[in-house]
């Protein structure tokens, strides 16, 4: 229920409906709609490179959203998210190549299949918690990676599997400019779905499991159900993201689904804000742009003393890895609630401007 135009100076909400509304004010809803309309013009304005970055942000943002359900909302730890992302990519490619299913249906189907696999690996989650679960998902990561290397019928083994380009009603959406709209549509649908999930009964149950699982159980929440459910949901979004990734690149090779990718997914949600839907997208944008900006920086610094000292050209890959780790540590120590929290602080500051104190 968007009733006001501006954010009120205090908390005057009197109903649950007002408290759980997606957009607190009419302005924020309109801003979102205008933002989405504006971004629809992106392919006509931006160059290919910027567009490919936006597509990456969208794809990884969907997968990171899944991870945020399991880590941020349910309080479980998953270190094997990239393996599910990879599983989704291979499944979608396999379904379209082997059974000739149109890519349009393959992507959600890949999500469903990956969710099933996620439920299998989520079964330990029913009994385990905290670090035991972290270790179980670590094992899942290695087992799935081994499976990718082994199952040649499914992944093509050492030869990368090819994936069909996305098409709808016989109209092929090939190339960044057209594929951008596919990703955009999926991002909007997935983020709306999760935003509404958190407002629902099930979403509240997940948060209750996170906040105090014993109290949640006493209040009648089925712990086993919600823990495995959150794993399944996380795997679903990872699968959808992976499928989009597969049809974007049109090849799926065995690389890029390792533990380092899982760490990047975790970094995305930590930087964005654990348990924040919009924060996930901010964190993803940050993590996609971080290596790119390091690239620009290294180009800008070419032949400068810093370049000679660090040997940027040869060592940029290691420096990038280090930067990821250091950024995670800095955020955990100084800003544990992530960019979403910073954004809320900025909004809160402007709410009472110029009389903030």
């Amino acid at each position: 229920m968007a009733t006001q135009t501006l954010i009120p100076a205090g908390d005057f909400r009197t109903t649950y409906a007002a408290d759980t509304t997606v957009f607190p004010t009419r302005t924020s809803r309109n801003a979102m709609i205008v933002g989405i309309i504006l971004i629809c013009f992106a392919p006509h304005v931006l160059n290919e490179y910027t567009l490919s970055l936006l597509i990456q942000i969208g794809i990884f943002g969907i997968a990171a959203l899944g991870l945020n359900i399991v880590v941020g909302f349910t309080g479980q730890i998953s270190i094997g998210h990239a393996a599910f992302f990879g599983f989704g990519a291979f499944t979608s490619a396999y379904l379209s190549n082997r059974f000739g299913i149109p890519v349009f249906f393959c992507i959600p189907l890949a999500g469903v299949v990956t969710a099933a696999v996620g439920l299998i690996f989520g079964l330990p989650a029913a009994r385990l918690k905290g670090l035991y679960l972290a270790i179980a998902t670590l094992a899942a990561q290695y087992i799935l990676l081994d499976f990718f290397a082994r199952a040649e019928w499914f992944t093509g083994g050492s030869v990368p599997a090819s994936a069909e380009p996305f098409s709808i009603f016989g109209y092929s959406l090939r190339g960044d400019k057209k594929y951008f709209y596919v990703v955009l549509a999926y991002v909007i649908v997935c983020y709306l779905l999760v935003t509404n999930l958190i407002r629902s009964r099930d979403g509240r149950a997940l948060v209750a499991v996170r906040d105090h699982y014993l109290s949640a159980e006493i209040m009648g929440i089925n712990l086993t159900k919600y823990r495995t459910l959150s794993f399944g949901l996380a795997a679903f979004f990872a699968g959808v993201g992976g499928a989009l990734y597969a049809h974007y690149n049109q090849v799926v090779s065995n690389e890029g689904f390792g533990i380092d990718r899982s760490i990047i997914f975790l970094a995305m949600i930590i930087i964005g804000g654990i348990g924040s839907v919009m924060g996930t997208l901010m964190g993803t944008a940050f993590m996609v742009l971080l290596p790119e900006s390091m690239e620009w920086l290294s180009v800008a610094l070419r032949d400068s003393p810093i370049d000679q000292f660090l040997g940027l050209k040869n060592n940029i890959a290691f420096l990038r890895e280090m930067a990821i780790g250091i950024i995670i540590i800095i955020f955990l120590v100084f800003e544990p609630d992530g960019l979403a929290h910073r954004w809320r602080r900025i909004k809160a500051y402007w709410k009472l401007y110029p009389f903030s104190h």
Partner: protein
Amino acid sequence: MNTQLLIQLLVNGLVVGTLYGVVAMSFVLIYKATQVVNFAQGELLLIGAWVCWWLLTKYQVPFYLGMPITLVFMFLFGIAIQVVILRPMVGEPIISVIMVTIALSTVFSALMKWMFGVNLQPFPRVFTTQNVNILGLQVQTVYLMSLAVSLAMMVGMAWFFRLSKYGLAMRATAFNQQVAQSLGISVKSVFAMAWAISATVSAVAGVVVAVVNGVSAGLSAYGVKVFPAAILGGLDSVGGAVLGGIIIGLLENFAHFLDSEYLHWGNLYEIAPFYALIIILMIKPYGLFGTKDIERV
């Protein structure tokens, strides 16, 4: 059935297993004392090995000098990690603490690749004789040394915990931090000391592996193998970690034997411990000797 190969592999398994045991022991030490799951254990191994290699090759320091210098360095390094990075994380949710150690492992492994490259570097020869004949089996001297060093470290650790005053303080802290503090134990210094000892012990294991196989970024794989070992033994049992390490080492090599003789799946050696890990977590998540976590409301 190829008995010779089986025995050879089982001996390998025992040697590698004791090393796993040592690393798992230092992993459990940190967990027990500070409740931190250290995902950077493998990188501690790696750093120790690289530092020792660097001293030995670049500065031509003899081994009997280079090794103690490495250990002193790692001792200080462990304290530094705890004080600078993990002390601010005390009381944070478990996911944050885990993420910090994961991030540390990323930083360290990238740093090591940057400083020392990605290629395998052979370690300077430490022993003059290559092989020793024991009961008709050709055993490499380095293997014997590895076994001896591992056993010595286990005994040393047992002595430290059972008989030394500081070990007692550590056990008290692991048992109950508040009570330990009220009895005059500095929990801060116990935490730092746990990291220091763990880093030192890992570095010894790292140098041993480096002497056997050379140094490369792949050394940090030991840090991942620690999880099956520590989970099997029970996350908070030092003795269990040792036993778990040996079992995982044997299992790995036995899987390799089955694979090469009968199954021909390939790569089973690498992946068998993780299947074992999942199975253990399903049936006995607290491991063989771990204490079952009972919660009261």
